[in-house]
């Protein structure tokens, strides 16, 4: 077992310098602290800022524990606004830990450099992470779990939870450790190269196609309205809508909702109330059902 704090004495320009080395255990501990407590104080002003500090505590204590001034600086540095997708975004934490380690050992890394990495990467990784986690994996596994659960099969919820837990924790742990391994050197690789661009593009295609399938399977909008003109009867759903384009009402509803969010820049809650009122009214009138 490696000792917690390694004091390596090296001769540098005749001055003995103490090198503080983190071991993997510290990085792992930070991962688990983040996994549990990332959102314990989630708030409108700075979202995950204090969650990141809470996670990094073992690292910061080891690096700056006997240097109050440096500790103060580090804490104030990380009190800045921070928000990303907590599993895929863990690569940022890994990199930040590596940067803090170098900084504590005298590397010329500024507060701006560390915050630059955080703010530069948190957006793209939130996008990729949310698409893959909330937009793709969770709905797919839920669709499977619900189809079993709705028939009273308890394997539905169990399967959903086990699969999701295993897949996400494995991903999150490895992404976090990878971030620490590549460290500040890896940022250029991630930001500059085509890696991040490829990941974002691939994730958005996978996500969009899955969401299309979900929309077709789960958005239910049907029109039972029948127009009576004398002897002539016209069932709108089967004789008009289905004849033109199968699923045109659910597709139209989804696109309409997307239009309000994206082009009209409406808040999710506002759109929710609009949808609620509209669907409820049309349901009461018997136009939808």
């Amino acid at each position: 077992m490696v000792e917690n704090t390694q004091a390596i004495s090296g001769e540098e320009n005749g001055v003995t310098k103490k090198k503080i080395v983190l071991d993997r255990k510290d990085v792992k501990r930070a991962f688990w602290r983040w996994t549990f407590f990332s959102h314990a104080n989630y708030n409108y002003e700075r979202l995950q800022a204090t969650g990141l500090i809470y996670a990094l505590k073992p690292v910061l204590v080891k690096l700056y524990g006997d240097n109050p001034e440096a500790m103060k600086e580090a804490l104030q540095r990380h009190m800045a606004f921070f928000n990303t997708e907590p599993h895929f975004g863990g690569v940022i934490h890994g990199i930040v830990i590596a940067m803090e380690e170098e900084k504590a050992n005298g590397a010329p890394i500024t507060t701006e450099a560390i915050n630059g990495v955080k703010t530069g990467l948190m957006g793209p990784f939130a996008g990729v992470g949310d698409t893959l986690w909330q937009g793709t994996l969770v709905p797919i596994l839920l669709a499977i779990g619900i189809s079993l659960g709705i028939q009273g099969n308890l394997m539905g919820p169990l399967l959903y939870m086990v699969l999701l837990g295993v897949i996400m924790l494995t991903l999150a742990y490895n992404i976090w450790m990878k971030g620490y391994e590549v460290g500040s050197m890896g940022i250029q690789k991630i930001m500059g190269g085509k890696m991040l661009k490829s990941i974002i593009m691939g994730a958005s295609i996978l996500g969009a196609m899955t969401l299309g399938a979900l929309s077709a399977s789960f958005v239910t909008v049907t029109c039972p309205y029948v127009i009576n003109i004398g002897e002539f009867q016209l069932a709108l759903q089967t004789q008009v809508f289905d004849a033109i384009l199968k699923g045109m009402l659910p597709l139209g509803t989804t696109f309409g909702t997307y239009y309000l969010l994206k082009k009209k820049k409406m808040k999710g809650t506002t759109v929710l109330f609009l949808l609620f009122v509209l669907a409820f009214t049309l349901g009461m009138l018997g136009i939808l059902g």
Partner: protein
Amino acid sequence: MEISLFQAFLIGVVYYLGEVGTPWLTLLFSFTGLYRPLIGGTIVGFILGDPVQGCIIGATINLPYIAFINAGGTSPSNPGLAGTLGTALAMAAGVSPAVAISIAIPLGLLGTIIWIAHMSIDVIFVHVCDKAAAEGDINRLCFWHVWPPQIVMAIICIIPVTIGAFYGAGAVTDIIANMPERVLTALTVVGGVLPALGIAMNLRAINREGTLLFFVTGFFLVQYVNLPIIAIAIFAGVIAYVYTKLFMNAEEA
């Protein structure tokens, strides 16, 4: 079915444990675990002595929230409350799963208040953390990150749900009994439309040109070819890989 005070309290605790920001189960097993009616409903079923019925009702209530997304601090609904209290009240009132959706959807709307409350109150604790940071006191900062927000969260989650589960069942039974058939149908319509919101919010989060083409492809593969979602996800993965590879190579050339 009667819900005892103790059972009502347990349901409140289940709701608290699943709420976004409760650390005890990890975000994974709370926000994408107990917070989902499929899971929350099953656990409530266990508490009320009929996990299978809880699972059926929970799975049904989960349908409108299939693609639910909480991103950037905005949450347009509260599936956690819909899944726990909704399942409890539906089981107590002995209604069908379809009617359970009608009970759960208004609860999901109402539950947004709990989200807004804790996201606002927690701002206070950030400022206390600022002071601790200025003094370089990491222990105090970590204390304020966990305990005060969790005490607030436990209070605003457990108390309303306990009261709702204990006193709500009778009220719900009366309301459902006196409700015109048409209102229940209209609420079912709402339930059918709601998944569109989660899906559209996810699409907005992706926010890339050309994604709608892939969306439409996935949509019509279900409508006309009737492929199951898992099959489409697999094809989507392959297409995403090939497309990205070709695109990147073309750009390099």
